[in-house]
């Protein structure tokens, strides 16, 4: 089956992305009886999720028996500054324990309590010790387990295949188009339901913990296909990334370092978190810690390489090596620092996107029929700030729901075909990158974009900086049509790959910058120097992004989706916060 010699495949459900959410969705879809395909840019098992370190939040109550879903729900809402989609936060808190146990039944091996159950560790913003973990490589454990399950679940996998377009027939998504990276051969897929599990977009910043894959493809593809996105201005800067040497700046230092007792100090040796959050100290929410470090550095109390000291040298050195082995290794190998003896130097790094495709919490379907989203690609669950460990739970809970949702849609739908014009159009785009007349170098434009975002849309924002950034992004808009890969060869062409990615990142950058300009308050991960407090209006509103191009992008404040039966829990938490 081919159109103009293009390789073609047909599935009931097609998943884009092999991170935790994509794999979980694929397993669910296949188990529901759908013919399932999975496409990913990298090799299987290498997706961004393998980097996750600290753990998976689930209120199992193994370490703290008093824990339960309602506290987890409250913590998530409080961390998200009440902008979360209530239903998503509820489903996540309720279902994460089952998903964690299920993972263990599929062969995952986690650290144990003395009672031989799954151990749980403390993390910022979680009332109780809640994070299921194995050393500091929980994401790897999760990926490997899901990977093996997927491989034996009758899912067909297309590795190193990049999707550049979603294809619609009328108002419905019916498939997608892309190319095989190893050969440059074009490939198209038709699918009755398509799940975006494409992760975040950290690569729009220079200093990021994200892997190369994270270029916001899913956000841009969904936007172009007519989906709505929610709260894109909330970008989580993780407080502790490496700051030195330059080559590794941004590399994550897991929150588990603080969870296990790490202490933050400034250049004067002061434990500065006492001034910003005396109650939670180092284990305050990420937005608070990140801003605190940033402020210390800005006010001249930074370390020689422009960060803060993070110290675990007071802990037993064997304990550190056992609980944080990859951190120990990472610093020894890459920075020549033995963390059991000397403090680390750390600073904020772009880490996670709270925003994403707006979906139905129960099924993951977007506004566009046939298009689903899950994981970091979807938005709403985390509100204005994500708690550590809530992403891995999110991937499993909503990955499964999206996979089942997609399978149900597929089962209820007749065969679909790809409109030839749409395929031709997608093909022309790739032709243009290879043989067009443009002369914009994607490597250079990527750098420019990173600079714009870093300068104007970083941790602290103000109207002037944001407007300037938007102006510069508009300049890039004009040039993006001229992107051309520096080489026109087909096989493993990094320039070709980056052309489409830069386009996607530019779209995402617009959403973030415009959302940040519109939201005139400081809340969670979004801090405006010119609007430092909470606003009552914005505390009740999400920003919905939709449109057809970067020029015609509309942002609409929309009331937060609440649920009556959860009202009492939320109010109780708000009261408790006020009291303390």
């Amino acid at each position, binding site marked *: 089956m081919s159109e103009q010699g293009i390789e073609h495949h047909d599935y009931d459900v097609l998943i884009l992305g092999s991170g935790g959410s994509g794999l979980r969705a694929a397993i669910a879809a296949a188990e529901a009886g759908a013919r399932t395909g999975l496409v990913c840019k990298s090799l299987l098992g290498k997706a961004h999720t393998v980097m996750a370190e600290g753990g998976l939040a689930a209120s199992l109550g193994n370490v703290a028996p008093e824990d339960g879903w309602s506290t987890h729900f409250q913590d998530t809402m409080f961390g998200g500054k009440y902008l979360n989609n209530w239903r998503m936060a509820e489903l996540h808190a309720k279902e994460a324990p089952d998903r964690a146990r299920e993972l263990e039944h599929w062969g995952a*091996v986690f650290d144990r309590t003395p009672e031989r159950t799954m151990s749980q560790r403390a993390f910022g913003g979680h009332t109780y010790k809640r994070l299921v973990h194995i050393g500091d490589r929980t994401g790897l454990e999760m990926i490997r387990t899901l990977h093996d399950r997927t491989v034996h679940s009758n899912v067909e996998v297309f590795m190193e295949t990049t999707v550049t377009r979603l294809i619609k027939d009328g108002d419905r998504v019916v498939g997608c188009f892309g190319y095989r990276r190893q050969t440059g051969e074009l490939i198209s897929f038709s699918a009755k339901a398509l799940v975006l599990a494409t992760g975040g977009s950290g690569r729009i910043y220079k200093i990021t913990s994200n892997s190369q894959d994270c270029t916001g493809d899913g956000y841009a593809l969904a936007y172009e296909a007519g989906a709505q996105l929610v709260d894109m201005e909330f970008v989580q800067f993780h407080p502790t990334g490496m700051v030195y040497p330059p080559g*590794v700046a941004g590399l994550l230092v897991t929150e588990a370092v603080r969870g296990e007792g790490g202490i933050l100090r400034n250049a004067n040796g002061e434990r500065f978190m006492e001034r910003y959050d005396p109650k939670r100290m180092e284990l305050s929410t990420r937005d608070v810690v990140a801003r605190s470090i940033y402020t210390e550095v800005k006010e001249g109390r930074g370390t020689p390489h422009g960060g803060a000291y993070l110290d675990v040298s007071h802990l037993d050195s064997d304990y550190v090596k056992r609980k944080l082995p990859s951190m120990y290794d990472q610093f020894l190998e*890459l920075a020549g620092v033995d963390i059991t*003896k000397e403090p680390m130097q750390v600073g904020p790094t772009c880490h996670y996107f709270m925003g994403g495709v707006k979906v139905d919490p129960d099924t993951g379907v977007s506004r566009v029929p046939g298009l689903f989203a899950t994981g970091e690609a979807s938005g709403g669950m985390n509100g204005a700030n994500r708690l550590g460990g809530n992403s891995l739970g999110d991937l499993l809970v909503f990955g499964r729901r999206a996979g089942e949702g997609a399978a149900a849609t597929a089962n209820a739908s007749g065969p679909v075909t790809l409109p030839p014009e749409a395929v031709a159009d997608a093909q022309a785009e790739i032709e243009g990158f290879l043989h067009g007349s443009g002369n914009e170098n994607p490597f250079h434009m990527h750098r420019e974009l990173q600079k714009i975002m870093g300068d104007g849309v970083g941790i602290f924002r103000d109207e002037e900086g944001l407007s300037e950034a938007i102006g510069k992004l508009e300049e890039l808009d004009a040039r993006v049509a001229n992107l051309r890969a520096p080489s026109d060869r087909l096989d493993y062409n990094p320039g070709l790959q980056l052309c489409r990615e830069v386009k996607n990142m530019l779209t995402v950058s617009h959403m973030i910058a415009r959302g940040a300009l519109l939201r005139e308050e400081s809340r969670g991960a979004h801090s405006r120097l010119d609007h430092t407090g909470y606003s009552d209006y914005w505390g009740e509103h999400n920003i919905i992004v939709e449109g057809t191009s970067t020029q015609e992008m509309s942002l609409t404040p929309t009331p937060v989706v609440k649920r009556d039966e959860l009202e009492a829990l939320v109010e109780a938490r708000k009261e408790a916060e006020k009291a303390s």
Partner: protein
Amino acid sequence: MSETIDLAHAPGPRKLQIWRGDLTSGELVEYELETEPGMVVLDAVLEIQRSQAPDLAVRWNCKAAKCGSCSAEVNGRPRLMCKTRLDHLPADEPITVEPMRAFPLIRDLVTDVSWNYRVNKQITPFTPRESLKPGVEVNEKGEFLIDQADTDRMSEFRKCIECFMCQDVCHILRDHRLHDRYYGPRFMMRMASLDMHPLDGVDRLDQIADEGGIGLCNITKCCTEVCPEGIHITDNAIIPMKERVVDQRHDPLLKLLHRTPNKGRRKPPPRTETPTL
């Protein structure tokens, strides 16, 4: 053993010789670039890609030594490019960067590692034993009861990031090209981690010995030498598995006593294909 990187002494220019070519032909091409303190080989390769050789093919993803994508042979030894600092390599000579040799070349530094995925597909995933003892092996919430001691032994193997450098350096694959008869150290170890799972219900020893080809391993330990995760592949996985096979097939004493190991474990479903390169 801490060392500080001296900013005052900027590292200066370095030469890299990078393998350029495909299956039909190729050569080492020399590039020169300015380096930064603490730069790793992958930084250098990407900088060359950005400024001198835009079509240079290289596979990477996390740049944090966590995904195992960027395996290559640096100065003749398998290394993760993102974990190998330039200033740890001899300064007076060019650094050579070549693709892994045990797998077919796609182009430049990128090899076709799909054989590994075909091998993995032959391995039955973890399957719990049919009856687990309540209160001893599983609790009332359905959660497994496993001791940290058992976890520790398995989790060493589960640190594997699938960089496939052990497969690359294993002479059975690299020199003798017996990809159809030996699963390679990575998958011997994977089978070991499953076999040592206290609750696993699959008898894997025949597969380890027959299709897996554990007898081909002559325990020369190159896999252990190159593993970036420092896993003791040979001592902790392969040798123990060889010993388990000896229990079942060679030990005259156990034969006399009619002791069958792996009691209570089921035979796995038959394998469907022989993974070939």
